[in-house]
C-alpha cells in the first residue's frame, strides 16, 4: 500500500454519507487490516485537529465524515444562504422521548408528554428523523417507533450510546 493514510482520507473525503469501517475494509481488501485502518483514521483526526482548519473528522452514525467546525457556523450559513429550520419544542420533546425509550409506542409518548403527540409524530416521520419499527405483539398490534440513521446524522451522533443518560441529566439538575 503506497500511502494508506492518504487513501483512507480520500475515501472519507469523497463519500457522500458517513463512511463505515466495514466499507473501507471491503474496498481495501487484503491491503490493510481493520486495526491499521482505525489507527490511520485516528492519525487523520489528530492531524486535522492540530491544523485547526475549517473542517474536522467526525464519527457520525457509525461512520466517518468531514464536517465544518461548529464555531464558524455563522459564516457557512451566510454562504449557504439557508436559515436553519428548527424543530418546535413539541417535536423536540417527542423526539427526545423516542430517542431514549425506543422501541416506544405512541401511547407511551402521549403519557410521558401528557398530550396527544399525533401531529408531532407525523412531522418527525415525514422529516425521516423517526421510523416505524414494526408492530408490537400485543392486542391491537400497536406500532413501535424509533429514531433513524438520519437522526444520528442530523444530531451529530456517533450512535445512540452517545446520548447522555437520563440519570446524568437528573444529576445535572441537582447540581444546579
Amino acid at each position, binding site marked *: 500500500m503506497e500511502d494508506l493514510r492518504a487513501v483512507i482520507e480520500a475515501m472519507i473525503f469523497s463519500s457522500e454519507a458517513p463512511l463505515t469501517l466495514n466499507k473501507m475494509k471491503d474496498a481495501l481488501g487484503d491491503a490493510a487490516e481493520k486495526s491499521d485502518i482505525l489507527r490511520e483514521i485516528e492519525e487523520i483526526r489528530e492531524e486535522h485537529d492540530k491544523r485547526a482548519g475549517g473542517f474536522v473528522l467526525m464519527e457520525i452514525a457509525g461512520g466517518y465524515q468531514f464536517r465544518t467546525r461548529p464555531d464558524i457556523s455563522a459564516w457557512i450559513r451566510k454562504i449557504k444562504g439557508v436559515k436553519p429550520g428548527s424543530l418546535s419544542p413539541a417535536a*423536540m420533546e417527542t*423526539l427526545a422521548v423516542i430517542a431514549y425509550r425506543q422501541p416506544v409506542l405512541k401511547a407511551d409518548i402521549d403519557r410521558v*408528554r*401528557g398530550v396527544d403527540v399525533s401531529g408531532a409524530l407525523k412531522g418527525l416521520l*415525514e422529516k425521516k428523523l423517526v421510523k416505524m419499527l414494526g408492530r408490537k405483539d400485543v392486542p391491537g398490534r400497536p406500532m413501535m417507533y424509533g429514531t433513524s440513521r438520519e437522526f444520528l446524522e442530523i444530531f451529530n451522533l456517533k450512535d445512540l450510546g452517545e*446520548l447522555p443518560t437520563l440519570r446524568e*441529566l437528573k444529576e445535572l439538575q441537582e447540581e444546579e
Partner: protein
Amino acid sequence: MTYEIKLDVFEGPLDLLLFLIKKNEIDIYNIPIAAITEEYLKHLEVMKSLNLDLAGEYLVMASSLVHIKSKMLLPVPEDAVEGEEEDPRAELVRQLLEYKAFKEAALNLGNRSLLGRDVFKREGFPERELDTEDQQLVELNIFELIEAFQRVLSTMKKEDIMEIEGERISLTDTINEILEKLGSEKDVTFTGLLGEGFSRRRLVYTFLAVLELIKLRLIRAYQAHPFGAIRIFLAVEE
C-alpha cells in the same frame, strides 16, 4: 388576590404545572395541591377567555388535581400503618419528574451541533450505482411508497376520457399475480408489475396489493437511491 398570568404557549398540562411549580419555588416532592389547583384553574380560565384552543388534556389534568385535593382532605383511617398509605400526589410527582427529565433531554438535543445549522458536510452528487451487486438497498417506508404511487399517477395520461367498461380486477387476483411473478423471477420492479398501458384501476389495485403483501410480510420493497426504481422481492428469499 391578583394573579400574574403568563401567556406563553405551554406544551401541555404537565408543562403548565412545571411552570407554576418553578414560578412559586415549590418543592416538587411536597406540592401544596390546593394552591396549585387554584392557580392552574385560573390559568385555564384566562386561556379560555382568550379563545385559545384548550385541549382536552388540560381539563383532564384539572379534574385529577381536584381529585387529589379531595383525597388529601380525607382523614387517614385510624388503623392505617404509618407510611403505608401512599401519598395521593405520588403518581403526579412521578409524572412531573419524568416529563421534566425529557424536557431537559429535548433541550440538550437541540443544543447539539446540528447538521445544516452548526456543522456542514461537503455537498456532492449522490454516489452512482455501479451494478446490481453493489447496490445498497434501503428498505422503503410507507411515505416513499406513496410518493412512488403519486409519481406514477402523475405520469398517467389524463386526456383520454371515454366511457369504458371497468376492467374487473380483484385484490386477491392481483396479489396472486404478484406472487406468481415473484415465483418465476427473483425480483420485479413496481412499474414492471403494472405492465404496458395499465389503467388507473390497475395501478390502484397493484399498489394496494403491494401494501397488503408487505403487511403480511410476504414481500419486501427496496430502492437503491431516492426516486430510483422500486424493486420487490419475496420476503422468504433472504
